[in-house]
């Protein structure tokens, strides 16, 4: 089965220091699936698998998706591959997923971006503006403004404030956010240290009023209570032992199951599967309590019972 969407690189250009911006289209120009602001695209990197990048174009544009990717020399290889793509290249991608949605019920939206973390907010901005929403975006960066072409009209409109930490002291996140008030929704996308600062600044806020999007999966704490279990695939009937703390995703694949994966850290949603029996230990960061009753993220989940049966 074609598990992926085939796309053509319609345009490739620089978009700030070390940032490559791609416009992706269907090879024949057909409209692409609708996406929600805050969605990310898992590009299939040859030899590496899926790598998640936030879609940064206006979701109303039906026939093009945009991503902006910063070259990270220390990364797992995805950004280097993106930076080598030229106009006309063909790429494959999984269906976009939105794990960082806008809060529909909010009356004011305050967003904080660290560097290339601006990308999901570039997709949210036109949506909020069309809704007539009250919103503001703070972009913090050090080595030059990310995506300056996309930010320019929002800066001119007074919607975006840029904070260049090479020119002025890095602002205090709590001061940017202010005190919580009814209807206020805060968002943050950036490096781990910034997310931790954001979480600290919003720790006393009402549940759900501050949302974060990770660049890369945070390291999982080691789990001293992890135990071995028997993994069974309901459809094929095959099974195998998984050692304590072993990767469920790897075990599934060893049993012949085809499971997509991208972040492999429980934040992107690519490896979501349905479970049928057992007692999964969910260690992802995105499934709701309700969803966990039927689904798990294979990249990080473990099992607290002797046996885990999944719908594969």
């Amino acid at each position: 089965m074609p598990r992926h969407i085939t796309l053509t690189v319609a345009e490739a250009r620089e978009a700030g220091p070390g940032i490559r911006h791609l416009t992706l289209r269907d090879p024949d120009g057909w409209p692409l699936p609708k996406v929600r602001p805050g969605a990310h695209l898992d590009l299939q990197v040859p030899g590496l698998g899926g790598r998640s990048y936030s879609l940064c174009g206006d979701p109303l544009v039906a026939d093009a998706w945009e991503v902006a990717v910063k070259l990270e020399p220390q990364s797992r290889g995805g950004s280097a591959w993106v930076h080598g793509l030229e106009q006309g290249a063909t790429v494959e991608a999984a269906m976009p997923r939105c794990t960082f949605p806008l809060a529909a019920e909010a009356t004011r939206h305050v967003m904080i971006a660290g560097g290339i973390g601006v990308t999901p907010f570039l997709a949210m901005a036109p949506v909020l503006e069309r809704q007539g929403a009250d919103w503001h975006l703070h972009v913090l960066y050090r080595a030059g403004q990310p995506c300056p072409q996309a930010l320019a009209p929002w800066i001119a409109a007074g919607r975006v404030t840029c904070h260049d930490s090479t020119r002025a002291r890095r602002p205090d996140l709590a001061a940017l956010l202010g005190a919580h008030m009814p209807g206020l929704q805060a968002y943050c996308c950036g490096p781990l240290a910034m997310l931790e600062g954001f979480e600290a600044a919003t720790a006393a806020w009402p549940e759900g009023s501050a949302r974060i999007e990770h660049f890369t999966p945070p390291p999982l704490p080691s789990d001293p209570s992890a135990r071995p279990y028997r993994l069974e695939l309901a459809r094929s009937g095959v099974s195998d032992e998984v050692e304590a703390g072993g990767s469920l995703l790897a075990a599934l694949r060893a049993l012949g199951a085809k499971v997509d994966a991208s972040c492999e850290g429980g934040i992107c949603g690519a490896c979501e599967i349905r479970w049928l029996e057992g007692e999964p230990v969910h260690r992802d960061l995105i499934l709701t309590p309700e969803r966990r009753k039927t689904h798990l993220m294979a990249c990080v989940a473990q099992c607290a019972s002797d046996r885990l049966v999944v719908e594969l």
Partner: protein
Amino acid sequence: MPTEISWTGQVEHLHITARAFLPMQPQQQIKLIAGEGIEGDRYRIGVEQGFYSEKPEEGRQVTLFEAEVLETILRDYKIELLPVEHRRNITTRGVPLNWLVGKRFHIGECLVEATRLSVPCRHIEEILEKQVFNSMVHRSGLNCRILEGGTVRIGDSIRPA
């Protein structure tokens, strides 16, 4: 003696798409090609680019879905599933699709033969971001092969052969 039910229905919506995952495109009319499929659709035999194209199936040349099912899914599950979203080609009204496996019937000027009931797929939940799978079980439409091709238009009658 089994009772033959009497029915006539009509075409309410028409949709095709060129490739898996891409949104279905509404059409005023579609061209059915005998033994192959629909011009421009992902499951036309010979040019297949559908989600299940690696599982070839001769009887999947055109697919149908009842408008009435969309209404009952809304009523019973409070899920709004639109004609553009069920990913079958022809949305029908007044046609008892689940009764027609193995039967031949006319769609406008075309003649088709129903090969099997369609089954829902989790793939649709991925595309729609709607938890609609369970609501579609046992009423997910009909797969047909095309015996006599031609043009199908919105409003065309559907009737037993």
